[in-house]
């Protein structure tokens, strides 16, 4: 029924502690982003428009650029694979690992890997798979799910993390000082790094002209993970291609600033392929797995602009609904505004189940305002609401609108209704047995009706 939206319920039941973590983390991100963009650029808006047009151009010619990128990667000695579904991607990665006899690996943070639930699959298949990003490592320890694209543990505070470390034997005693937590994780992870035989990463950008893969982290974990291993596998969505290396100037400048308020992420790697003869270490084998997994369907839809996304999380940080409900309320890999568009269409068969996501927005447009690639997210949410309505997907947010349309296209009926609405002023509507009305009036008062008063005044005014 109306008012029984899952996301609203989630926000109602969220603990105060979790809610504070999300609100504070998200608000800090928004503020930092604004400061750094406006300090460095006279007109940040112009740059994101350029970024949007580069992405649109690439998506428009995606087939050509993918072929070009493949050619460039192969010429650098990289093995290129294409996976059309999540299952294909998992099997491709497993067979690469088996081919190299890998039983232990480290993985840096990757939303693409989250999307296909790679970790549990590899563990089931006998491969020890350790998350090396601190946030993702904590998620793995807690058997939790990331709730933010960039800050996977935005919903946790340091006390919870300290308790986890104690429970898991990573710390001998409870200590919630962030520096101590990080140092302890570092000691624990370092030893694991040295035993790994392969490293799995995502990829932020692939330059079609040179085949160079750009990868950003703030912890240096992906770079560190490359040093001891023989095999590097990069799992990358097909929309991550950019035409030329020089386009990185636009995207890297926007990504760090939009995501974490940094001018540049602390570690920005440009990976040229497997270890060359004159390099002292690094993987001898490199595989790039380009994954479709619903992306060509999105490209064919009327929401293709969402494929511009560079996964900065700025829309999540600024979104008032995300702040209240947290990323977990969106019940899919991608939460917040980007997820409300992407999840229902990327995982197409789950559309009916996720059709409430596009409705979880007041359409305030803050997401579009901060988006480094100017995705018109509110328009896309509206198109998906229209899609749900056309496909008769049941949703508790569907207030019947045809009576409204009838009233709003019958002027004399409308005028009568306006005048009659004054009768409401004398009715105790707050006790009317209508649940949504009670929910609304429980928190807010409604002004007195002045139905039709302006029209009456205007007629008199014109005569005078």
């Amino acid at each position, binding site marked *: 029924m109306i008012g029984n939206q899952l996301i609203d319920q989630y926000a109602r039941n969220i603990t105060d502690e979790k809610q504070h973590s999300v609100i504070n983390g998200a608000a800090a991100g928004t503020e930092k982003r604004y400061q750094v963009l406006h300090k460095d650029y006279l007109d940040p808006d112009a740059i994101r428009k350029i970024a949007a047009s580069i992405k649109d151009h690439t998506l428009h010619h995606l087939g050509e650029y993918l072929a070009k990128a493949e050619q460039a990667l192969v010429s650098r000695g990289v093995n290129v694979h294409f996976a059309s579904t999540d299952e294909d991607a998992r099997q491709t990665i497993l067979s690469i690992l088996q081919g190299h006899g890998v039983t232990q690996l480290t993985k840096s943070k990757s939303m693409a890997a989250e999307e296909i639930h790679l970790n549990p699959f590899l563990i089931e298949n006998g491969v020890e798979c350790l998350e090396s990003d601190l946030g993702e490592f904590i998620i793995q320890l807690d058997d939790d799910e990331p709730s933010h694209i960039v800050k996977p543990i935005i919903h946790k505070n340091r006390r919870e993390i300290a308790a986890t470390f104690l429970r898991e034997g990573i710390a001998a005693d409870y200590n919630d000082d962030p520096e101590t937590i990080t140092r302890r994780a570092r000691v624990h992870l370092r030893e694991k790094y040295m035993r790994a035989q392969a490293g799995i990463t995502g990829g932020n950008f692939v330059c079609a002209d040179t085949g160079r893969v750009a990868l950003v982290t703030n912890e240096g974990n992906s770079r560190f993970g490359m040093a001891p291993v023989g095999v590097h596998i990069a799992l990358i969505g097909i929309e991550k291609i950019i035409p030329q290396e020089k386009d990185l100037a636009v995207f890297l400048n926007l990504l760090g600033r939009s995501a974490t308020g940094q001018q540049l992420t602390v570690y920005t790697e440009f990976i040229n392929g497997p270890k060359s003869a004159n390099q002292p270490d690094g993987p001898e084998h490199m595989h790039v797995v380009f994954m479709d997994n619903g992306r060509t369907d999105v490209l064919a839809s009327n929401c293709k602009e969402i494929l511009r996304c560079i996964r900065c999380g700025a829309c999540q940080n600024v979104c008032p609904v995300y702040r209240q409900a947290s990323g977990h309320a969106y019940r899919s890999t991608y939460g917040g505004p980007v997820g409300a568009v992407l999840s229902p269409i990327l995982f197409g068969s789950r559309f009916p189940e996720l059709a409430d996501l596009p*409705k979880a927005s007041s359409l305030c447009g803050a997401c579009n305002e901060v988006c480094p690639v100017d995705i018109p997210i509110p328009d896309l949410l*509206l198109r998906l609401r229209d899609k749900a309505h056309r496909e008769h997907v049941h949703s508790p947010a569907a207030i019947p609108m045809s009576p*409204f349309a009838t009233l709003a296209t019958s002027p004399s009926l409308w005028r009568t209704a306006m005048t009659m609405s004054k009768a409401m002023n004398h009715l105790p509507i707050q006790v009317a047995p209508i649940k949504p009305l009670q929910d609304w009036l429980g928190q807010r008062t409604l002004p007195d009706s002045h139905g039709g008063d302006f029209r009456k005044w205007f007629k008199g005014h014109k005569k005078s």
Partner: protein
Amino acid sequence: MANPIARPLNKRVLLMGTCLCDAFYDDTAKATVEVLEHLGISVEFPDNQTCCGQPAFNSGDWTASRKVARHTASVFAGELPVIVPSGSCAAMNFHGNLVQFEEKPDPAITSLAKRTWEVMDFIYNGLGIKTWPGKFEKSTRLAFHRSCHARGTCTGEAVRTLLASIENAEVVPFGEAEQCCGFGGTFSVTFPHISGKMGTLKLDRILDIQPDLLVGIDMSCLMHLSGLAQTQGRPVKHLHAIQVLRDTLP
């Protein structure tokens, strides 16, 4: 959600009163007429107007909302500028309608989009009035809530500049101004909890600066915020910017 460029100007305009002013806020519509007439503009109010159709559009029932939009476009047919005392309904005319008619553009809808002005934008950018000769009796702190549908449009600057030019007025910035008041039309009904929390946060930030008056450009946001404020026992005096312009005239 940028304004359409090169919208027409005329000494005669059509007023789109909005359903909220029709039902609750007659004085806002009245102030719109009085201010425009004060500026030498002749205002007509097509009597067959109803609503812009946004409730159905936002709900995803585009069959219903297109029907309402076509009705509105026919009521406001012609060449004259259409003036709206609401950022949200104006944006429905110049943006939302273009989205819902993008597959089959309708000339009447496109024409309405090109002629629609939010009223403060019309005064500031259309008529070129950059200062307001108004006066508050005593020093007055104003909190201006630039509602979400005015994002990316010229309205925010118009209101801030005109309000600040009023004698004894001070427009005081407050925190997290980019955040929504939580109304969102049907959103406040279908997501009552999140909507209420958003509104409460917004109120907190507004009341931080202890304003004498909360000024908006959408009665919907003001209805939501004042409704919450009253229930929470911290009522806040609120007016539409156009009412402030009228009320401060000598």
